[in-house]
């Protein structure tokens, strides 16, 4: 009798403890993000005060966003730079790694394994140590201080991951499928675009998400390689605002910039979580 009464009570207590911890920890992890977003909607004067409480007391306001828009050449220039760089990095990364993944998965050629290891092993070398030569090479090519130049660097930095990902994706497709198509007279290129591409789309999604997040958030290379203020991407601009290069720090405007930078990352992750986690664990399981 006593047993049947304590068992459910015990289970209820365990459940409460489980969700108590879960909710408490979730609040700790989410609070800074929420705090920043809420403060970005405070009126300017209120945003200068400590954010207690975090929500706008004096009414919802877009003043911080207006202030943010005033910096330098205007926020849309910088947001435009960031968007252009990220989208170009995504497209180029997908294209280059799609071709390379197919080549490494399906063809035999001299030095194949050496070349594959060469591409993959660049992940061991920190790009931070080759930034000076990169700066000089881009200058030689006339690409220093251009968005094209930084896109090429970002695509290269993504290559070990994206090539590895795409080769695995192609390896997972049975050879018989393309053999049948090839025999039906389709060209190599048609086989790749019409038959293989739909089958490796999950891999493409993973490569695209990682390329977007990496290029959208990258700071150090952009700080060094983009010297003209008009070419700044959002992280470089916001770091300049924070260091006081545009006068007294307007923390409301900084948090509206942070919100602007976080929003696409969070949205993309929440929408395509499956492909993101797949990419994350691909390295861990291998």
């Amino acid at each position, binding site marked *: 009798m006593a047993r049947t009464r304590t068992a459910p009570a015990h289970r209820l207590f365990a459940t409460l403890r489980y969700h108590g911890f879960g909710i408490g*920890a979730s609040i700790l992890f989410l609070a800074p*993000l929420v705090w920043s977003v809420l403060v970005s909607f405070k009126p300017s004067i209120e945003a200068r005060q400590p954010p207690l409480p975090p929500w706008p007391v004096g009414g919802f306001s877009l003043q911080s966003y207006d202030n943010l828009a005033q910096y330098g050449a205007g926020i849309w220039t910088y947001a435009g730079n960031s968007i252009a760089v990220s989208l170009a990095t995504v497209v180029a990364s997908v294209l*280059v790694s799609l071709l390379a993944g197919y080549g490494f998965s399906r*063809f035999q050629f001299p030095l194949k394994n050496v*070349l594959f290891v060469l591409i993959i092993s660049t992940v061991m070398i920190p790009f931070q140590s080759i930034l000076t030569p990169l700066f000089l090479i881009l200058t030689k090519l006339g690409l220093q201080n251009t968005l094209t130049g930084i896109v090429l660097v970002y*695509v290269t930095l993504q290559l070990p991951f994206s090539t590895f990902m795409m080769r695995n994706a192609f390896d997972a497709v049975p050879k018989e499928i393309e053999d049948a198509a090839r025999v039906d007279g389709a060209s190599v290129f048609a086989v790749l675009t019409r038959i293989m591409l739909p089958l490796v789309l999950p891999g493409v999604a993973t490569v695209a998400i990682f390329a977007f997040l990496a290029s959208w958030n990258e700071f150090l290379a952009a700080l060094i390689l983009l010297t003209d203020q008009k070419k700044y991407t959002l992280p470089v601009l916001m*770091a300049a605002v924070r260091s006081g290069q545009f006068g007294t720090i307007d923390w409301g405007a900084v948090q509206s910039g942070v919100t602007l930078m976080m929003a696409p990352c*969070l949205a*993309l992750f929440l929408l395509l979580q499956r492909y993101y986690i797949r990419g994350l*664990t691909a390295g861990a399981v291998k």
Partner: protein
Amino acid sequence: MNSGVMTDQQQQLTDGRPRRRRTARQRRKQLVGLLFVAPALALVLLFFVIPLGMAFWMSLHNWPLLGKPRFIGLGNYARLLDDAQFWASMRFTVYYTLIVTVAIFSIAFPLALFVEKTRSLTKLYRTAFFLPVVVGFGSASLLWAWLLDVDSGLFSPAAERLGLMDQRVNLLAGFDTTFWSIIIMVVWKTAGFNMIILLTGLQGISTEVQEAARIDGASPWQRFRRITLPLMRRTIALALILSVAGSMLAFDQFYIIADGGPQNSTVTAVYWIFSQSFGSFRLGYGAALSMVLLVILVFISVVQLRLLRNPEGM
């Protein structure tokens, strides 16, 4: 059906062909394969292999931004032995790496254990813990720079208002408070990442082994020590090395939040290379510093490969 017929025909055709034609076709196929990987190779050559060679070459020169580079052999390397700030930066970077890695693991491991078994809401918790990971280090640093601000921020004014402190303390004024604030920020930002890596390891352990131990009367702690930890060696090694390599290259948070201060006490190795190369424009010297950092990181990667390849690691 159709393709089956074609295969037979093709088989006949290829069998009937002279040998030379066949090797020519093979060679063409090889060429096609090379063409497919050519763009990737070109990028790696131009933006990785050549810069790497250049970095070494530059490290042997006195290389100003403008003007002619002068060959000085190992001069830069000799100089860095006497560079007090370089050694202070290296010491600080190693110290930071040790502390932050321990801190990340002590949060990420319990989180991984917590979200391992899927119950109601577990997926939601996982997502909540992971969200800071997808936010960039730049954004996260800007966010925390504000939270840590003495006038407009959260921590110091909140502590004052709650009566924990008599007056507001500028957390970024002293080394210890700056350092630990950044540690907390990095743990917040990266614990979710390590949680997911550790989770894959946890899920790889068969439930039967755990169940058998439980029936044999092993306590949860014993099961963790004797079964979970040994079976996760590979995953733990991977997460550890990712964390160590990432922390050795830390820059964004120290540059954005602390500006290397107070009094250059939080200048990391990458930060010092950055300021020598692009602040003082000593490109050759910066390259020599880079080579030292590179050797350290490659060493870490080699250790990683050893640990992960070792079959006993399973």
